[in-house]
């Protein structure tokens, strides 16, 4: 009796995750694939099997590829500085600061702010007519920028929004693993006369490798799925279009637009599947690249 229990117990402990995943993860995934093979209207229902027609259409859909370019562009623009900044921030937070807990809590604050509030505030900061950034540009004699109007400026503004929200979060995760780095390594480095910068590159970064891989993957998934920030950045009618020429529409926004404005559920499911594959590919590339960071033995 006790033996059976001992064998069953571990499975019972982990089962909730797998049950929940099966219901909310695996089933939708398979069902989405099924829907993507159909002409499926959201409200009118299934209009018949079309095979791979949706996928073929997607390959030639310039709007989709524009959204893809935007997504990857914003992702790179947001994630690279974010992770570098987070690593540096973690290093700083790990040093002897006064009121350390205060600073550590502080960097997490942007993350607990409601994303809707962040979107509205940043929308106002980067507003064309009454925004504070344009006001500041004006005081130094520069022309105001229509932040939403151009591709580069809208990407930049959205990246700033994403970084503001997630840098502190990643810094704290990195900090946790930084504290596990043996102090002796730094002491030895100091004795050898290594500069702070050298210590950072030769000890901190290699020791943090697994954590950096983890935060990069999480950031990748978040970045490729980016939705709320660009949506809130362009408020008003048809905000889901991400600007008048779709200059900051991400793939996730395109997906929602197709499903709920366009009523094309089957096509939107196709977008969802391609997005899923894309995230998988990106995650693999990420791991492969980061593996190349040298480990200290």
């Amino acid at each position, binding site marked *: 009796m006790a033996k059976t229990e001992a064998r069953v117990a571990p499975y019972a402990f982990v089962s909730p995750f797998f*049950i929940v995943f099966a219901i909310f993860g695996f089933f939708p995934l398979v069902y989405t694939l099924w829907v993507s093979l159909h002409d499926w209207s959201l409200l009118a229902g299934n209009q018949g099997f079309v095979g791979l027609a949706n996928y073929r259409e997607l390959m030639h859909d310039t709007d989709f590829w524009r959204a893809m370019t935007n997504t990857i562009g914003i992702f790179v623009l947001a994630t690279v500085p974010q992770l570098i900044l987070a690593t540096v921030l973690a290093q700083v937070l790990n040093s002897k600061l006064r009121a350390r807990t205060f600073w550590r809590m502080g960097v997490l604050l942007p993350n607990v702010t409601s994303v809707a509030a962040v979107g509205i505030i940043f929308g106002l900061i980067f507003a064309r007519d009454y925004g504070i950034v344009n006001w500041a540009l004006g005081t130094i004699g520069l022309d105001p920028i229509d932040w939403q109007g151009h591709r580069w400026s809208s990407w930049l503004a959205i990246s700033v929004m994403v970084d503001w929200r997630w840098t502190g979060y990643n810094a704290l995760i990195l900090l946790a693993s930084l504290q596990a780095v043996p102090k002796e390594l730094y002491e030895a480095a100091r004795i050898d006369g290594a500069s702070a910068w050298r210590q950072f590159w030769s000890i901190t970064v290699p020791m943090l490798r697994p954590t950096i891989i983890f935060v990069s993957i999480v950031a990748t998934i978040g970045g490729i799925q980016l939705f709320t920030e660009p949506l809130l950045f362009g408020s008003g009618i048809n905000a889901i279009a991400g600007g008048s020429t779709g200059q900051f529409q991400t793939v996730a926004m395109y997906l929602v637009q197709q499903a709920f404005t366009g009523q094309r559920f089957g096509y939107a499911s196709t977008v969802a599947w391609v997005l899923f594959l894309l995230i998988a590919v990106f995650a693999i590339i990420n791991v492969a690249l980061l593996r190349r960071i040298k480990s200290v033995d």
Partner: protein
Amino acid sequence: MNRTQRIAAMAVSALAVGVLAAGCGGSGDDSSDGKVTLRVNLFGKFGYKDLYKQFEAEHPGVKIVESAEGDLGKYNTKLSQQIAANAAAGDVVAIEEGQTVNFLQSADKFVNLQDHGYADIKADYLPYVADAATTADGKTTIGLGTDVGGLAMCYRRDLFEKAGLPVEREEVAKLWPTWQDFIATGEKFQQGINDPKVHFIDAATNTYNSILMQGSKETYFDRDNKLVVDSNPAVKNAWDLSTEMVDAGLSAKLVAFSDEWNAGFKNGAFATVACPAWMTGTIKGNAGDALAGKWDIATVPGGSGNWGGSWLAVPKSSKHQKEAIELIKFLSSKTGQMGAFESEGRLPSLPALYDTPELKDAKNDYFNNAPTGQLFVAGARNLEPVYLGAKNVPVRDAFENVLRSVENGQRSQADGWKEAIKAAQKAAK
């Protein structure tokens, strides 16, 4: 960990799964204790607060909770999800004009009001309001009309004065019998005001939609749901006139209903807004008390028009259908529609009210005591039904977006027209 602890832990995890599964079953039914909570899902401001109180007083045990989404696009997305999933849409939902055809596709997910005495009240509504929420075969009606978007033109008296234009509403109306006159007036305004921060209109899209909706019985689709963007002269006409306004530099180039547009009211960024009756509530809310009396209302170029209007429906997923049907009947009754007119300026869809002194003589003190009753009723009586296809919203969005790109200087007008047709064809798929 000893045996008892292990068993306890297993029980806890099993329980956790059970609780989670139960959580998916929806919220508990609250009617067991004799109390009924009706959830009303709306977008924007309907002005129902006092009416709820009245209904609750007449129906002891009923409590009404309203949730209102400010963003119509977001509201429609959520409502489509909920209706498609047949869950959690609320006991009463508002359906906006552009979406009625859409939701008629899934008429089986709504309570058919014809089973609940609709025949007795149908004749009270403007005919097109009654037809719009009924399926083509005439057998299912999913919504009761609340208000219609009788059109006028709201304008800033103080800015007109500064620009050297007349300010009294009768004279202002004479400035623009047609949209061409409106453009000419706009050019005079820009010259007179001579301030790069103040424009004549708020956004090309708002004017475009107003012109389009007054020009024809159909817009992007004919009644067979065939896309007619490139053959319907009404679309080209609305496009040409609104791009002409852009060329003349009349537009403040704001995205309608965006945060910046909202701020534009307070900052005096534009002098006119195409003004369906419900817009008076929006203007008052956005511009604030400081600008009371500085706004006024004149007739719209072309005399009348239609923009917006809503229907109230009861989804089949509602657990309190009986009470919900009573509530929408009340809210769309004479009392209900009059109440919404008084608090938010929403123009009733019941023609019987148009001759009552309460409506005929109604004035809006925020708009310099403009006779809103007369102004909007005159437009409403002449309202012609405009057919909007099931894909109206995606096509309109596509068109508006290209128009905005022309407005922002991202495309030329000629390129824009070609692009708009292409985008419309794609959106109509």
